[in-house]
């Protein structure tokens, strides 16, 4: 990887998550008949938080202060691993998608511990929900990418997302994996119908409740990490459906990925405008739907043995 490519990858990681949040907010605003804020509104919000002095409760320890740093660092590492354009990425190695899942797990653990450290039963409830949902989300992720890896023989993001000869089986597997990743995006990033990022009702909150006690730069780090996570999943979905790769056609590949990421943001916004939150006890069932869609790839690959090329 040369310096300009790395720079482009880093620029994407820095700017696109902010734009992605803006597109979702704008979609929801337009659907509600409003003009909505600027597409870049998240940037001044983050800058405003960065200028503020953080406030720490006397009940918290070093864990509470370390949590935002660990969450942001682990999510940034995840973003470096995942190419937002197929073939364009940072450090990649064999089975890096397993390391990706572990890094995401580390970020989740830090977030949960940070929430528990406040000794607030309210935040503990959110931490418990987050940990419970992770047990359903991770198998879906491994099943979706594992099936693709097993069928294609590629074991790193660098080669896994690069488009292959478009056979019926390849396309079906990619579409099913993309669909499973979209459901995972809603689960992992706390979007409707799983969680409502704008609500402050204690009975329904998951992600937002865990960051209630954070302020200033710590809150900015957590907000940026959340946007980054959304961008990673949107980038993965766009990458899976992208017909070009960076090596063969850089400009069409980058444009197709940008359009794909934008389409995912619009889809997230539309779902949030049209669908109500599901009851919290049924959220694991929603996770099971993601697993079933992911295992649909396994089923298709198994049933079409010898039938599809």
């Amino acid at each position, binding site marked *: 990887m040369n310096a300009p490519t790395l720079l482009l990858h880093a620029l994407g990681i820095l700017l696109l998550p902010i734009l992605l949040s803006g597109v979702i907010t704008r979609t929801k605003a337009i659907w509600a008949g409003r003009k909505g804020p600027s597409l870049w509104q998240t940037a001044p919000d983050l800058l405003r938080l960065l200028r503020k002095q953080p406030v720490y409760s006397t009940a918290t320890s070093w864990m509470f202060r370390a949590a935002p740093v660990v969450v942001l660092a682990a999510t940034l590492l995840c973003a470096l691993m995942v190419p937002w354009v197929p073939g364009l990425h940072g450090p990649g190695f064999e089975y890096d998608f397993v390391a990706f899942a572990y890094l995401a797990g580390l970020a989740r653990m830090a977030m949960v511990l940070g929430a528990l450290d406040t000794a607030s039963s309210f935040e503990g409830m959110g931490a*418990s929900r987050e940990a419970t949902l992770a047990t359903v989300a991770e198998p879906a992720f491994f099943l979706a990418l594992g099936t693709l890896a097993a069928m294609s023989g590629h074991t790193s993001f660098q080669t896994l997302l690069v488009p292959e000869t478009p056979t019926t089986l390849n396309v079906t597997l990619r579409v099913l994996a993309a669909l499973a990743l979209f459901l995972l995006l809603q689960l992992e990033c706390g979007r409707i119908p799983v969680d409502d990022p704008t609500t402050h009702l204690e009975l329904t909150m998951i992600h937002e409740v865990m960051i209630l006690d954070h302020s200033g730069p710590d809150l900015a780090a957590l907000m940026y990490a959340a946007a980054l996570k959304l961008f990673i999943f949107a980038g993965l979905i766009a990458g899976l459906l992208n017909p070009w790769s960076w090596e063969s056609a850089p400009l069409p590949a980058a444009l197709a990925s940008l359009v794909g990421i934008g389409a995912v943001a619009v889809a997230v916004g539309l779902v949030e405008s049209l669908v109500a939150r599901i009851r919290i006890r049924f959220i694991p069932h929603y*996770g099971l739907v993601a697993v079933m869609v992911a295992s649909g790839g*396994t*089923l298709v690959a*198994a049933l079409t043995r010898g039938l599809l090329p």
Partner: protein
Amino acid sequence: MNLLTILFLVTMALALLFSSWRGVLVALSLQGALMACMVTLSTDHVDAASLVLLTDLVLARTVLGPSILWQAFHARDVDATVEMLPANLFLWCVATTTGVAGFWFAARLYPTDLAQTTVVGAAFSQVMLGLFSLVYQRTVMGQVLGLLVIESGILFFEVTGGHHLPWFLQAMVSAVFLGLVLLAARFSAMPAASGVENDVGEVL
């Protein structure tokens, strides 16, 4: 190895069909013993990693884990019935299809290696069974059992794959397993919330 894999599948059916936490714990214990036999048969030379793995399988998975949970659930006098899969025809069809798809998928990956096909299919089915249980169980006891079933499936895949972790990592994995079991036992010993009888509380 094939016979042991088939026995592993039988123990999985035991956990699924007996609809009792005692049945699930016995099945998990038997699976630990079967995996220990597999490691013993497949190890050519004894080193620290295989010793720690064997100790983990025999002590933690076969004896300590199931017996600690047995005592905890027994002392709490919880309801004997735990359905790993709820009695719902649609759900059973989905679960069966998923399990069979796992075997067919493995057959596509390893068309000439029946042993490897059986191993991958069994591990896949076991993990999916645990996942279904985790999603549909609303009690802590049911969720812990689901988690242990998944754990056993993943370990089965690792053991039969011939890939052993370094001894210190394996020791840490074993410690995490025992920690989980002790935490579950401790949590199930806590008094139930009012209005919840013979239950160790609901999550979510």
